[in-house]
């Protein structure tokens, strides 16, 4: 444990803002590059999503609080008309703050205001099956992502902080709906179960599977 201001984490705020700014630039510029292409007939479809998350499993036990802070950048290339392969890169933060939280151990206890924080960075390859035909407005899809998650667990108690981070193998099944609004641009809604397989030696002294349900709304374009 160490005072959290010594964690040198202040750089993260600036970095996070730069990332957000760049993401907004992509959000605005990307659809313009899409022209009037149609879904399922063009080789590439890209989506920038704002994501929320509901913690599950170990994540729920650790910080049971709905997350409103996350995003993903996703791209898919169509191998066939209804089948695409692609990638997911994202960021999700799950956190919970509580007064008077207490940790007990074999010969004592510590009590204080706690702040529990999970940061998850999924980097996944995925495949999606799409319904419908070119020219239709709605396309439902189901997909499965496989890849890695980097997860950082942080616990603050009073002025002290402790953190631990590890890489996990992970899977992410999903379902969703794409609504094409014209000019090759559309909106995507999806629900994805993120399951980083248990790994690491986290602050509790055990390995953890920091799973969460992700719910995203994204702007999609084809190119």
């Amino acid at each position, binding site marked *: 444990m160490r*005072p*959290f*201001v*010594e*964690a040198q*984490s*202040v*750089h*993260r*705020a*600036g970095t996070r*803002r730069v990332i957000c700014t760049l993401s907004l630039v992509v959000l605005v510029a990307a659809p313009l590059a899409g022209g009037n292409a149609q879904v399922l007939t063009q080789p590439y479809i890209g989506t920038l999503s704002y994501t929320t998350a509901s913690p599950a499993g170990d994540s729920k036990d650790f910080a049971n609080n709905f997350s409103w*802070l996350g995003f993903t950048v996703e791209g898919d290339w169509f191998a066939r008309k209804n089948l695409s392969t692609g990638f997911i890169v994202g960021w999700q*933060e799950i*956190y919970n*703050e509580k*007064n008077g939280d*207490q940790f007990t151990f*074999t*010969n*004592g*206890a*510590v*009590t*204080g*205001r706690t*702040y529990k*924080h999970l940061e998850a960075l999924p980097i996944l390859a995925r495949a999606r099956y799409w319904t419908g035909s070119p020219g239709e407005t709605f396309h439902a899809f189901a997909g499965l992502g496989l890849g890695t998650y980097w997860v950082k667990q*942080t616990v*603050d*108690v*009073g*002025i*002290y902080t402790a953190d631990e981070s590890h890489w996990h193998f992970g899977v992410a099944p999903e379902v969703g709906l794409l609504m094409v609004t014209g000019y090759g641009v559309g909106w995507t809604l999806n629900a994805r179960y993120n399951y980083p397989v248990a790994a690491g030696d986290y602050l509790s002294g055990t390995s953890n599977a920091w799973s969460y349900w992700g719910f995203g709304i994204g702007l999609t374009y084809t190119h």
Partner: protein
Amino acid sequence: MIGRSTFGIACLAVVTVACYPGRSVDATSEFVSVTTLYDQAAPFEAVKKYALPDTVLYVPKKENEEVPAATQTAILSAIRTNLNALGWTEVTNARATPVDVYVVAAVTSTTYVGWVYDYWGYWGWYPYWPVSYGASTNWYYPPYWYAYSYTTGTVVLGMIDGRPAASNGQRAPLVWSAGVNGVLDDAATNITIATAGINQAFQQSPYLSAGVQ
């Protein structure tokens, strides 16, 4: 407790909120933590009499400086109230009347110095950048890093087994300890935090009255 570092506390809050989304730090008391440790073999249920020295010391010792009298009084009073609530009896002359445990208290403090990154200042500076950059002699680097400091204080409580058999001719064993740790503020706030923390230390140590289960 001693000292005051309002700017440091403000910066600490800024750093906290900047690095941790959703975290709200509204008062110094929110930085407080109470830690207790105990000897699992200690027979707390057999303790009947205790001695409490009348002084709270600085650790390490400070030359020509003592813990303020009001702070000492508040800390000792909180300890005494909690010990009496356990059903234990205070002995004022431990040389004349043997006691089961001695309870001692001390105060320690540490000052931290750090830097805070004011990204709002960065965005405020940015729109003027092209102008200054164009006139290269007027170019300046944005002052969005600020130094700050804050001081933490800890009230340390110790309980020493005073029975001759316990020491067995060696150093008397420490059977319970507690630390109330937080960021220092004004004297009145420090006392409030310290006494609340002492109460919490006893509350999270039920084995002191019931014995180790």
